[in-house]
């Protein structure tokens, strides 16, 4: 009888876990990429941030030739924008103050 070879049948080595540096890299890239792509940087094709595009889209949805309450538009936009209502409201105020795309009434 002989001692069995140490290199055993299976190559399933103990699990290597990601260290803090791996975690940092992973999470940081997730977050940074998301912020860049989905939040803060306007698209080169139309110059709009995602939230702005979503507001315009819901305005188009709601359009019936009359003024709409801001709160309603915000509520509708939340269908497309997976964040809080405050961020949508703020973005809409910004758009409205440019006085280009949104016909406003009242204090903006």
């Amino acid at each position, binding site marked *: 009888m002989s001692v069995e070879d140490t290199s055993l049948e299976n*190559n399933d080595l103990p699990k290597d876990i990601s260290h803090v540096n791996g*975690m940092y890299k992973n999470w940081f890239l*997730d977050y940074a990429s998301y912020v860049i792509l989905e939040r803060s940087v306007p698209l080169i094709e139309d110059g709009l941030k995602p939230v702005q595009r979503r507001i315009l889209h819901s305005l188009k949805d709601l359009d019936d030739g009359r003024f709409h309450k801001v709160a309603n538009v915000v509520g509708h936009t939340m269908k497309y924008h997976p964040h809080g209502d405050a961020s949508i409201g703020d973005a809409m105020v910004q758009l409205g103050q440019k006085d280009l795309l949104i016909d406003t009434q009242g204090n903006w």
Partner: protein
Amino acid sequence: MAENQYTEDNIRSLDWKEHIRLRPGMYIGKLGDGSSSDDGIYILIKEVIDNSIDEFVMGNGKTIEVSIRDKKVSIRDYGRGIPLGKVIDCVSKINTGAKYDSKAFKKSVGLNGVGTKAVNALSSYFKIQSIRDEQTKLAEFESGAVTNDAPIESSSLRKGTKVSFIPDHGIFGNYRFLNEYVEKMLWNYCYLNTGLTILYNGEKFYSENGLRDLLEQNIDSKIVYPIIHLKGEDIEISMTHSQKGYGEQYYSFVNGQHTTQGGTHQAAFREAIVKTVREFYGKNFDAVDIRQSIVAAVSVKVIEPVFESQTKTKLGSNDIGPGMMTIRTFINDFIKTQFDNYLHKNPETADLLLKKIIEAEKERKALAGVRKLAKERAKKANLHNRKLRDCRVHYNNPKDERRLDTTLFITEGDSASGSITKVRDVNTQAVFSLKGKPLNSYGLTKKIVYENEEFNLLQAALNIEDGLEGLRYKNVVIATDADVDGMHIRLLLITFFLQFFPELIREGYLYILETPLFRVRNKKETIYCYSDSERVDAMNKLGKKPEVTRFKGLGEISPNEFKHFIGKDIRLEPVIIGKKMSVEELLSFYMGKNTPERQEFIIDNLRFENDKELEDNLNT
């Protein structure tokens, strides 16, 4: 070795197996699934290696081979081998061993002849082979019972002992070995036994300079002066001060056993350093200033050590041997002469140390004002820490049986903490809720810990202002949403801990809670999925039209579902500092100023989701 006979011996040997399997805690501490470094499966490895180390200490076999593959652990040493006639006794008869009266073994940890037997009883498969005098003997066991008792044969192999075992799933549940912990343990063996080579899965572990190497490998920031390494009979120390970093960092060992919670020897060391420094400089420095950001390793040998806990992580003995001087005097004397001599011989080091101490004093005084204010505020916080929903049992209460289960969940926002609060175990699980994102604490001084309300309350909840001794929870779990903002909060929180309480991470108290991203269900079955690929698998499995819910935040998981995610099947990912990188660099790169390098890095590695592509990949 009478398998089928019913004799008195049989009854007794059944007893030991059953007892070990019934009360494994008495032998190996806690069970655990391998996600914590003091879990039972690592103790099993340690018990076997300890024996091989004893052979090495006796001058037999400079190499130990360790391999872990598919949960099967094999350890081969080249010592003298167990006497062939007693092989089975040695691993299956409790209180059997050669270490009872041999003087050379007196200063070893395992003295009771229990270790390998415990391993045997707790393994679903256990094999031992001993080779000596060109002969070999092999035996196999299952849960401690002999299944194969091979006769002695002649062999041409090198002498030594080989042990293989697979920890029993029935006892340890669904465990996994984490490389990090195994490697750390093996390194510690190498540091404490200079000249020893350990081969782990083909990788070579070897240390030339003992504890000096330990510090060199574990220090991640710049040090103030070169490492001081002093050796005496039955004692070895190495120490330095790190330039950045708060708190004290000790690696203490007794007879080769890593005492993670310190004990009398560590306390004596801390005291001795302060005393010697005060006498050397002739100034009455504050002890806190002298020990600020000290990094030290202490190893002592004690005859018949007494530990405060079963897991041998805290030394309790007062004397270095029965009827001998106290540990305190022993360490004090050694440091007083050796360390003092060293400082006299190395005036540059002495200067650097002095500067460091004065600096620490200055900083502390600057902090004093802020701290006083914060203390007053903390007093209020102690009475009512409004971010904290506390549990009944606490880790710093040694009398409590369940102290090892205590967990603090740091949650993001009130919605998540609501769910957890509702379903938690009020005895052991506490909740701390953050509001929004915490401050990026990189590059800030410790002042911020007191000034920022959230940090101050968190520190008060953990009770770690004066070091880890008072820590109130065994596990500190970051429970953020699994979305990108949750990732960001994790980064910010870990940055906070790395900056001001690195020992919390270093000693393995910090974890990340993994929660499912998706729930896929049809009328019969519900599957929780932790990743996109799991989701696609589950959707294929459940056939047409399953209901898929994405949990955007923890708040969307209803409380009774949440119960499973923080209950017995909790999924925790430990936060571990890797060996090969500097925390300082890591933090300044990711959390520091927005440098061109970081921009490049983001641009090169930009991630975007492509659902369709993922599904295509998985389907093909």
